[in-house]
């Protein structure tokens, strides 16, 4: 018998005795409903307003608390200008990015050499870049998170390896809460999900030394979200 069969046999043997239902103190097994217990999560998770304006305000407040920079831009031209400003303020020498409608547009005029993911790239080159510029799948108002996948944001490394992660998002990508974000993933990708899906909530951080917050532990020290 393989280890797989041995373990599954032990599991099945163990489960012959029913266990009491949570909160039922010794009363044995209530049948669980076919629908997921966590399906009602929205009712219990932190509250999110219903209108777009409320959700945007919440996202802004969360981003500020997380020490992520959020710039709301009125047009695509403003996006180009804002990115150019950031490149000159940050004295960028080289950037990393991926093929994408928004990234291509935003980076076209920067005049900086870039490392573009797609058909393979040199990680050492990416490591030497000043910023990683990506698109995303969604912004989540409830938590101030950016949802990226290996497909939407140029692979696995681009959003964590360079010291500054710049996300370019459209306003209509803002969703209310985590349940909505998971629904969106199902709708857009199931069953062929990207091999990596990541909720990025603020720049990389640690509290491992005396529980004091330090930004930029291993991932980006700065996270900027341009929302057009």
């Amino acid at each position: 018998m393989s280890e797989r069969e041995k373990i599954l046999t032990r599991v099945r043997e163990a489960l012959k005795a029913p266990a009491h239902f949570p909160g039922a103190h010794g009363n044995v097994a209530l049948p669980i409903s076919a629908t997921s217990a966590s399906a009602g999560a929205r009712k219990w998770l932190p509250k999110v307003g219903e209108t777009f304006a409320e959700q945007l305000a919440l996202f802004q407040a969360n981003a500020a608390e997380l020490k992520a920079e959020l710039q709301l831009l009125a047009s695509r031209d403003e996006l180009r200008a804002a990115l150019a400003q950031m490149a000159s303020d940050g004295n960028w020498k080289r950037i990393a990015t991926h093929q994408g409608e928004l990234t291509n547009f935003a980076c076209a005029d920067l005049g900086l050499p870039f490392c573009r993911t797609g058909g393979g790239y040199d990680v050492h080159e990416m490591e030497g870049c000043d910023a990683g510029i990506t698109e995303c799948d969604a912004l989540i108002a409830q938590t101030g998170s950016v949802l990226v996948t290996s497909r939407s944001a140029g692979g696995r490394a681009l959003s964590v390896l360079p010291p500054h992660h710049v996300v370019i998002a459209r306003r209509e990508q803002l969703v209310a809460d985590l349940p909505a974000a998971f629904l969106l993933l199902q709708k857009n990708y199931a069953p062929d999900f990207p091999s990596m899906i990541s909720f990025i909530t603020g720049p990389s951080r640690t509290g491992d030394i005396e529980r004091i917050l330090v930004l930029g532990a291993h991932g980006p020290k700065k996270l900027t979200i341009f929302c057009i």
Partner: protein
Amino acid sequence: MSTFATEFLKQARVMTADLRHRQIIRTALTNYEVVRDKRKGAFQSWESARQAAAETKWEAVNHLDKYLVEFVSKLEARGTKVHWASTGAQASEIILQIVRDKQARSVIKSKSMTSEEVHLNDALEKAGLEVVESDLGEFIMQLRDEPPYHIVFPSMHLTRGEIKELFQRELGDAPSDDPQELTMVARRALRKKYLTADIGFTGANFAIAETGMISITENEGNARLTAALPKTMVSLLGIEKVLPRLEDLALFLPMLATAGTGQALTCYNTMYGGPRQPGECDGPEEFHVILLDNHRTELLADAEQRDALHCIRCGACLNACPIFRNVGGHTYATTYSGPIGSVITPHLRGLQDWKHLSNASSLCGGCTEACPVKIDLHHHLLHNRRNAAKEKPAFFERLAYQIFGFVANRPTLWAIGKKIGRFGQPLQNLVNGSAFDPAKAWTQTRDLPPLAKESFKDWWRNRK
């Protein structure tokens, strides 16, 4: 008493008297409590969320065979190699085999308590590999050659001064004791390792059956890099990590963050469903997932304590526990410390050797209240005590209770006993707390209150 129990008592005595240690832990956990309570308060209903989380885990654990099979078939369908290990030694051997196949020389690790459980670092180092822990706290503990102090905050008992000295000694790089600068020292030291390591090793917080993904929760980005750059990725997880559906994460990710660190969501919550897929530009060529039993099925067979397998390793029960806060994480000498460690270690490593941990409890119930998935922790400590006594009764304890029962059931004997007690107590005062004191286990550290001059029963009879 087992040697483990003797050692525990010895260490506990030393640590409880160490006021500096207690101060460090208290400061760290007070800060945690403030932010955690704020985050709990932001939930519309934390209590309903706990109940839903408990029910979801109950569903997963009580249909574990079904969900494991689903998880594995989904993973394999997308090119992941899945391995099963009944014991820790088997898990290490599987990883060593991967190392040999890949002719690997170095492994970069992100935080994994399961790898601590199977002593993976020892096995890999013995085989001549360079193993580097990338989580800052774990990196610090690896440099100190010590196990993690806490399952979520591995180095919480150290001051910045101690960490500075450690970095100075081990890395020759510590410009100051500023946490910011110390973190940057670790960042610089580890950057090169991500780029050159042959194998990236991770644990997992959840295994999603519906879509065949593992989910990793972290703050630093070290797991993201570990899963992005090396050519081979290996993840080790206990079989109980399963959740039925992808959407369950909408509840579990914020609850884990709230209970674990007092964050609304940790910085990176990442799901991995396979190696690099066609059309993707990076990621490992091979992805191995190892499912570990290591006595979990024995705990599963104990229907009364099965809910201990609901644990999502947030550490909230450790933080709430007055015993943990005073004796510290290392005193337990187990992989999992605090209340959850006291409950499961007897199942993982033997009841008679580890039953003393179930007595290291004030039964205040703080752990049960703190648990985001409602594990009945403090009752399980009582269950362990009962099971241990049933399996191997303590002769003198049983005798004492038999005598007590005999006397308490006979009012005349009881009345005589009370009288003797009251006259005998002054004699006890002469030896109070000394080696000759029969009540010394109590009186060494506490007062023995005097017996009342008049019992309630006498007072009742004589009132008027």
